[in-house]
């Protein structure tokens, strides 16, 4: 995207794009975290790590706008955003534990459907090209039912590459991906950050990205 070039007016590099102020979350009666504050600037990725049950998924769902925080606020471009905020919805690409694929649709139809839902319908050629980039061109007409977990993940990667969203929120993106898939993800995130995007990634495994672009957040 050409956002960085023409975007001087809204301060990509002067302000943090994503900022959390004193966030708190609770699951049932147990408190997951309180007073959590951080900033992620344009071109930076926040890598969230922590033990199972430490609240990584909850934090990511908050940042994507799916869950309202118990306390604190989230700011996107210096403006407070609530859950399901319209500006946030137009900016975020969320990839959670669930693949959002329909077993009855083919890989190509699934991808086309997801991209159209994001408000940026892609041509058949663009879809085919994106599937080719994630090494699924031979499986494009197979129903998602017969695809392996890793191949399903790759459809998600193709979706990320087509969506052109400034904020990526990825929950365990490496799960079920093989070495080539992980390298592909690292390349895609690297390109996204180089274009001035922001990413928040919960992971247990190293991503293989240059340290200078990474900020780390450990939940305990």
């Amino acid at each position, binding site marked *: 995207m050409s*956002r960085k070039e023409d975007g001087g007016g809204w301060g990509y590099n002067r302000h943090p794009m994503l900022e959390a102020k004193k966030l708190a979350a609770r699951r049932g009666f147990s408190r997951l975290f309180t007073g959590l504050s951080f900033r992620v600037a344009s071109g930076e990725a926040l890598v969230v790590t922590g033990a199972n049950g430490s609240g990584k998924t909850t934090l990511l769902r908050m940042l994507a706008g799916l869950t309202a925080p118990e306390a604190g606020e989230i700011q996107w471009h210096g403006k407070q955003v609530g859950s399901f905020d319209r500006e946030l919805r137009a900016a*975020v690409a969320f990839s959670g534990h*669930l*693949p*959002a*694929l329909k077993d009855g*649709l083919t890989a190509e139809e699934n991808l086309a459907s997801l991209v159209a839902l994001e*408000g940026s319908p892609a041509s058949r050629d663009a879809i085919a090209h994106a599937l080719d980039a994630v090494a699924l061109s031979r499986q494009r007409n197979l129903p998602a039912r017969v695809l392996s977990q890793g191949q399903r993940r790759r459809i998600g990667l193709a979706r990320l590459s087509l969506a052109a969203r400034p904020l990526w929120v990825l929950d365990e993106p490496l799960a079920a991906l093989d070495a080539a898939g992980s390298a592909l993800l690292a390349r895609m995130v690297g390109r996204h950050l180089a274009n001035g995007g922001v990413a928040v990634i919960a992971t247990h495994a190293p991503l293989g990205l240059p340290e200078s672009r990474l900020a780390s957040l450990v939940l305990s």
Partner: protein
Amino acid sequence: MAATLAIAPERNDTAWPALRWAVARDVKLALRSRAELGVQLLFYVVVASLFPLATTPERSTLTLIGPGVLWVAALLASLLSLPRLFAADHADGTLEQIALSPYPLVALVGGKIVAHWLTTGLPLVVIAPLVGLQYALDEETLSVLAAALLIGTPILSLLGAIGAALTLGLRSSGGLVALLILPLYVPVLVFGAGAVEAARTGLGASAHLSLLGAGLLIACVGAPFAAAAAVRIALD
């Protein structure tokens, strides 16, 4: 100006594409699993056919109970198909993506409701006059039955969507949806069966059909918003 638009696209004009996306996708998915649709339709035929077997083959009794039975069967068949509306999308994560879409959620949910009616309500409208033949109803009564179902079944889908969305993620959601939604279905049942009964006795069904139509308009305005709000609560 252009930059502002890029950051916060004005999405007021996008209700129509959102509706189209949801209708096209859900109808396509439903047609890929035609067996499920067949089950619902067959259920309707079987339930409506049980009553002549269980009561009496006598003509006068059958025409008397026919309108009510045909409508109760339609209500039950509608309940049977409600879990299809959101539960599958909730289970595979599509509902998260739908809720995070820049399109208005109300339009997407509305499209899903339209698709649900096209694939479950409309077939009932078509088949009900055939099933009604067992109840010795005359031609005019049967056409009023079809008209009443044509207006009434969309209300069932609209109200049912609220119940289906409210019970998302619960373990025994099927039974709970029935308890939650059946009371709301009662006015539809009263005026729907009333229309058929009025046509049978020669009183004229237009009053009942008008009231059903008014109910449909109210449900159209309110139900998608309520269902969309319930979907967001279910995801939180």
